[in-house]
């Protein structure tokens, strides 16, 4: 979705708190978030012309069940899956449909209920054991850990640089009533927690979570009927890794390359970003992403974070709602939660988490094998 045609407004946002809710169904979670987003937008379900549902492990039809609980108005409903970036990608699809004039108002619901413990990347279809899993290679925190270790070897970043990401995330999470963990963690507590994949300790891993997010999107013209202070989804674009001959790489996608394209489409630069959300599933996520989004030079991400530049009061506030690490990461819901926080920041509704004079927000959401970057503006 580029910056042409009608502009798309994020008219309403809503969440079901993230955490563990064994007594609730996925429809319960999704319905709660959707009702909050529609209330925030000032619209009713009859105004929604298309529905999109971001989800990963949830079964076929989960989106249709959630939307069916809200009403039975005949609208098309589509499930979208891009691992942890599912609802970010779903928002791009919704925005593209609005830009194309196919629909005037759409709602994206993201939802997930996850079991406790490390994600099973080694599983394969048919109940067999996958080769990578059996070989000990299917270690998801290990992918981030190996990027961190490479960064440490090339650029001299230190363990505490990564750990500080989690300290900051939990500090912010304490200010977010929707966060899964609203408990501060000291640097010592983070660094001394159980080692999962060196240098990543347990408290540098996001939790598995239950939760839901919802986002109502509409055309600029329609938004005028509801608000005088719209927040625009100015650009949202995705990518998959780009092959470079003779180069070993581990990244989930060409973030730096896509960031340039997104900035260009928005007519903005990295210096214009006032607040950002990035995919801190594991702490190296933030250290690596601040470099790729152009917030600091390559190799300086660890120091940049360590010096407090990504704090709410820093130069580039990042993951002001606690991020995946503290807010939680119900995979399908995460993209919508990132949009929700940026919208609240740009509206000046973030309360104790508010970044002063935030007018441009950026989102980096990574799925296994794909990324999505978005810019929101006032």
């Amino acid at each position, binding site marked *: 979705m580029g910056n042409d045609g009608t502009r798309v407004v994020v008219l309403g946002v809503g969440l079901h708190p993230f955490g563990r809710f064994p007594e609730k169904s996925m429809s319960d979670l999704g319905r709660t978030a959707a009702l909050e987003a529609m209330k925030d937008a000032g619209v009713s379900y009859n105004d929604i012309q298309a529905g999109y549902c971001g989800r990963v492990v949830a079964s076929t039809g989960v989106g249709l069940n959630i939307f069916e609980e809200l009403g039975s108005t005949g609208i098309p409903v589509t499930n979208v899956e891009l691992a942890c970036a599912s609802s970010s990608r779903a928002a791009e699809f919704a925005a593209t449909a609005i830009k194309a004039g196919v629909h005037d108002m759409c709602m994206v619901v993201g939802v997930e209920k996850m079991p406790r413990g490390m994600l099973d990347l080694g599983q394969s279809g048919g109940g067999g054991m996958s080769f990578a899993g059996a070989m000990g*290679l299917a270690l998801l925190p290990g992918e981030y850990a190996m990027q961190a270790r490479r960064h440490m*070897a090339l650029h001299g970043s230190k363990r505490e640089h990564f750990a500080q990401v989690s300290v900051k995330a939990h500090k912010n999470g304490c200010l977010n009533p929707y966060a899964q963990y609203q408990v501060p963690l000291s640097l010592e507590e983070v660094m001394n927690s159980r080692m999962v994949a060196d240098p990543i300790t347990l408290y540098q891993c996001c939790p598995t979570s239950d939760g839901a997010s919802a986002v109502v999107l509409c055309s600029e013209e329609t938004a005028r009927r509801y608000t005088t202070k719209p927040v625009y989804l100015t650009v949202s674009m995705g990518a998959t890794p780009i092959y470079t001959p003779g180069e070993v790489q581990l990244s989930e996608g060409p973030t730096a390359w896509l960031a340039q394209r997104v900035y260009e489409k928005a007519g903005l630069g990295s210096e214009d970003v006032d607040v950002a959300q990035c995919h801190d599933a594991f702490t190296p996520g933030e250290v690596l992403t601040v470099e790729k989004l152009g917030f600091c030079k390559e190799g300086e991400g660890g120091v940049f974070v360590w010096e407090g530049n990504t704090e709410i009061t820093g130069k580039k506030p990042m993951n002001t709602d606690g991020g995946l690490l503290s807010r939680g990461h119900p995979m399908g819901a995460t993209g919508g939660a990132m949009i929700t926080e940026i919208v609240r920041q740009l509206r000046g509704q973030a309360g104790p988490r508010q970044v002063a004079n935030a007018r441009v927000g950026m989102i980096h959401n990574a799925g296994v094998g794909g990324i999505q970057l978005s810019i929101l503006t006032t």
Partner: protein
Amino acid sequence: MSDSGEGSTKHMVPLRAGIFRLPDTPEGKPVLLGSRCPKCGAYYFPKRHICIGCGHDGLDEAELSARGKVWTYTIAGQTPPGSLVEAPYALAVVELPEKVAIRAVLTDVDLDAVRVGMDVEITLAKMKEDQDGNDVVSYKFRPV
């Protein structure tokens, strides 16, 4: 079983066929099997059909080098689901001279001594025994 009893021979069985060539003896080295593009010469592991570099469809099977360097690594402190290798262990991305990246567990190594740039070579690794008592084998890398 007609061939049971003393004198029965234990066999080596690959954990997954087609990924590496078994050595003739348990002391030998396995050989990784990747792909090579006959048009532009690029190598890949695991095998693929189409060259990402030049788009050529129809790559040849290629034996890959036994030695490489640790490009990056981590020390796994937790055993991932389904793994036959138990934590703690060193997991590495090994860069071979063919410019392919191999994810592999390192063995016969001091976990505190693993470094980016370390020279390593492939080695045969027993992963488990099957129900007939055969060794199910695969590969790991070890310091040279």
